[in-house]
């Protein structure tokens, strides 16, 4: 007889304004099973987990969730936790200033009439730490622990609540090899004790090693569920499921005119700003030719943004080594100002946090990265500002009644155009575009592609960072893949295919010949 599944999610559909994030997704998890969920960035994995854990409360989605034989309707995370579902996020939810014990029992304190019994808590904490294999004094403050150990504390915290189902969202993304291995062993050990796990991960080798079943989600649909023990499941098989969609003609036509190499990065190595032993970029080398659109493919946390920002005037991490050569001369960019002076532009993936001052108007935003261009002796020429901004409005078709309007009133696509205009105004030779079409609708995406192509046609170099492989294949001339801070491949787009790219994005198989 088949045992009853511990969790069944039946035809879950979740819509956001204008977009179906999940459509008729089903997931079945058996007791004491490690169930992996795979999919590209934005496929809907995290949304599904948020539905399950009550972040999106019952009523905001359609479909049924059956947990341990009963239909559940969680209104918030607390309810799902009480039922025995614990979610461990990519971003750890621990309080750095509190001790391990205090964190483990936070919100769940052992108390007698409101007075916390710290002695009992500590005894239990020691026991829990032993269970997760963490050899630390329970009085240690969280901030003194590395990310790997913090992850173990999170799991210990889940164990307090008699967890039946553990959800791990990219648990090893921030961990090194040893810590990852330890964590995977722990998940296996918990499985032996009857705790089921759902694991979201981009690291296919890990999934292959620990998962019993794999559900693949693509564009908000369940594609298939693979039984690892049935055999025949390997990384290639998973990748085919993840990317198996046709490339539509969503990209403008273009005949590239590619010139000589004018921008080169050699042996670029960057340290994590807080954790010096972590190298977020390791000995990466790349080059860009005039008029070329160079794609940078990599999964979340691979180090693409870190690489881009560290090139752009060392705005991320600690510089360890590496050189930048532009137009045959080595240049040193110690701050953003000098990066802009040397013709670099960086369009951040996060418009709202890093790209724009949302309190400002369109015209002021557009000129903000190079005010000196329209200023005399420090005084900004208002009429030139308006004229320039208005020209960009027409050129990029920014939909607004006036460039005097606030940028916060624009839609995502138009905000992105303002950011592009802002950087075009600095007359860059090299534009680094980090996820320039994230959160933008299809029509606006096409326009952004057109802008990117016209920049390349002007002889500028473009580095395009994107999580969407079709996008990279559609408009890049050449693609570098990044995995764990290293460039793992360098393929002309004409020779690339999603499977090959995904393979280089998920393992450090070959070394790039940059």
């Amino acid at each position, binding site marked *: 007889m088949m045992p009853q599944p511990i969790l069944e999610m039946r035809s879950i559909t979740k819509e956001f304004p*204008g*977009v179906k*994030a999940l459509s008729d997704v089903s997931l079945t998890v058996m007791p004491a099973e490690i169930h992996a969920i795979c999919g590209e960035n*934005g*496929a*809907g*994995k*995290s*949304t599904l987990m*948020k539905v399950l854990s009550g972040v999106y409360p019952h009523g905001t989605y359609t479909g049924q969730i059956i947990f341990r034989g009963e239909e559940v309707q969680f209104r918030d995370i607390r309810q799902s936790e009480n039922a025995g579902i614990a979610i461990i996020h*990519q971003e750890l939810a621990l309080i750095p200033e509190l001790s391990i014990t205090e964190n483990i029992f936070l919100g769940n304190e052992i108390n007698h009439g409101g007075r916390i019994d710290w002695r009992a808590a500590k005894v239990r904490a020691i026991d829990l730490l032993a269970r997760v294999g963490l050899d630390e004094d329970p009085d240690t403050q969280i901030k003194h622990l590395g990310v790997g150990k913090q992850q173990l504390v999170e799991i210990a915290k889940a164990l307090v609540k008699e967890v039946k189902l553990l959800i791990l*969202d990219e648990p090893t993304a*921030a961990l090194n090899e040893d810590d990852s291995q330890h964590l995977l062993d722990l998940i296996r050990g918990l499985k032996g004790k009857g705790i089921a796990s759902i694991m979201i991960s981009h690291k296919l080798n890990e999934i292959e090693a620990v998962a019993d079943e794999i559900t693949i989600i693509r564009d908000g649909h369940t594609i298939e569920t693979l039984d690892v023990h049935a055999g025949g499941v390997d990384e290639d098989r998973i990748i085919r499921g993840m990317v198996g969609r046709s490339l539509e003609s969503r990209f403008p036509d273009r005949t590239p005119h590619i010139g000589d190499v004018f921008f080169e990065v050699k042996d670029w190595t960057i340290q*994590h*700003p807080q954790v010096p032993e972590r190298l977020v970029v390791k000995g990466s080398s790349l080059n860009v030719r005039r008029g070329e659109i160079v794609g940078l493919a990599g999964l979340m946390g691979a180090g693409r*943004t870190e690489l881009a*920002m560290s090139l752009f*005037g060392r*705005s991320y991490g600690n510089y360890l080594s590496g050189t930048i050569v532009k137009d045959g001369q080595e240049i040193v960019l110690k*701050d*953003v*100002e000098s990066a*802009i002076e040397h013709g670099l532009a960086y369009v951040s*993936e*996060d418009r709202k*946090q*890093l*790209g*724009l*001052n949302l*309190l*400002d*108007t369109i015209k*002021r935003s557009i000129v*903000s*990265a190079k*005010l*000196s261009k329209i*200023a005399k002796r*420090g*005084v*900004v020429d*208002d*009429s030139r500002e308006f004229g320039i901004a*208005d020209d960009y409005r027409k050129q990029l078709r920014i*939909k*607004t009644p*006036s460039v*005097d*309007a*606030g940028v916060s*009133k*624009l*839609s*995502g*696509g138009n905000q992105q155009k303002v950011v592009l205009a*802002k950087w075009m105004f600095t007359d860059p030779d090299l534009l680094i575009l980090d996820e320039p079409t994230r*959160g*933008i*609708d299809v029509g606006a995406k096409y326009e952004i592609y057109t802008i990117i192509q016209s920049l390349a046609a002007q002889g500028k170099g473009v580095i395009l960072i994107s999580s969407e492989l079709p996008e990279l294949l559609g408009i890049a001339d050449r693609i570098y893949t990044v995995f764990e801070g290293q460039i793992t491949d360098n393929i002309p787009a004409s020779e690339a295919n999603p499977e090959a790219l995904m393979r280089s994005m998920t393992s450090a198989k070959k070394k790039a010949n940059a």
Partner: protein
Amino acid sequence: MSTTAKDPAAQKKGGLSDIRKIFGGGQSSLRQFGILGSLIVIIVIFQIWTNGLTLSPTNLINVVNQYSYILILAIGMVMVIIMGHIDLSVGSVAAFTGIIVAKSMAEWNFPWPLAILLGIAVGVAIGAWQGFWVAVIGVPAFIVTLAGMLIFRGGNQFIGQSTTTPVPQEFGIIGAGYLPELALPFNFNVLTMLLGVVGAGWIVWNEIHLRRQQKKMGSDSAPLWVSVVKVVVLAGVILWAAWLFATGRPGTSFPISGIILVVLVILYSFITRNTIFGRHIYAVGGNRLAATLSGVKDRRVDFFVMMNMSVLASVAGMIYVARATASGPQDGNGWELDAIAAVFIGGAAVSGGIGTVIGSIVGGLVMAFLNNGLQLIGAGADVVQIIKGLVLLLAVGVDVWSKRQGRPSIIGLWSGRRKARLETQAPEEAPTVAPTGQANVSSLPEDLTRR
């Protein structure tokens, strides 16, 4: 997908938005419009309540003399607050400068112009000190200036031996002096009137220039009647005020401290609105990370804004000492709070990025006329304080509340949808990529925002 916030409703009832344009465009104009309205209402109420005493020449001169130094502090404070900082030390810095300037004249026999230069130098030095701690070391301005408040208050009392030090009479001109009478056969102060005429003329010229420029650029300018009303009202108010100041008690006219204030207001309005440095203040205050990634040296802006505040505090301190004819151990007590209140009443945002010099001056005038009016009707200091506190709370409360209505909140969820349609606000971008935590939290280096 709708892309703009083009608001058909507002265009139809264009009248109201045009009236708003009278007070200038920009995002905070509505707020300033409200504050200016409150100022007018307060003045009118007290004018009636005091049987015309409020707008009498003597009282107006009084208000300027009594509040010019607070308003000067508000000019610097708004820049500090736009940056997201606060400066608690201004009262103590003013007092510290006051005692040094007073001592320099009384004991070291400095001539008064040299003493003024010394005072400004003291402001620069203190500002550099505080700016260093904020910008270089990275101590929050709140802490740095709280320390400064203690240090410079103590410094004043240490140097002054906790007693008052008198200043020579000729120094009094900057705090209690007036525009001189010219030997002309008019029964009003000619210089004051002249100043008023220049001011009114500037208003007219400025509006013509603005309209011409807007026409040239094809920018949307307000209807002609709006400009005419704006010019007539503003020029009228200036000329009327000038007339009041010019026809007061003989020997009085527009105070010198008022002239210093006007010059500073014009100067700093220009700096904050038209210079690169001014733009950088708003950029850093609005989004420090985005500003840094646009090449703004945020620490440098921190430094100069903090330094500038101390310089203005020194100027305020000297004006006060000149008016009081002596420097005392309790000078400037509580000024920081008046200046901060003025800035917030004048429309600055607690979270930074928003605020104007003019707005803060209007906010300061609200406080000044409230204070003055309550004193005229014989209210005690206790009542005055209570009312000032309530006004501050109300002004910022209304602002916060109205802002919350503007964006979706838990409370606004049920009404939000309808409201959004009414305003035809651009909806939050509908992502084609599902807004999963992953997509939104993004792969940004996790520590980036923690800088």
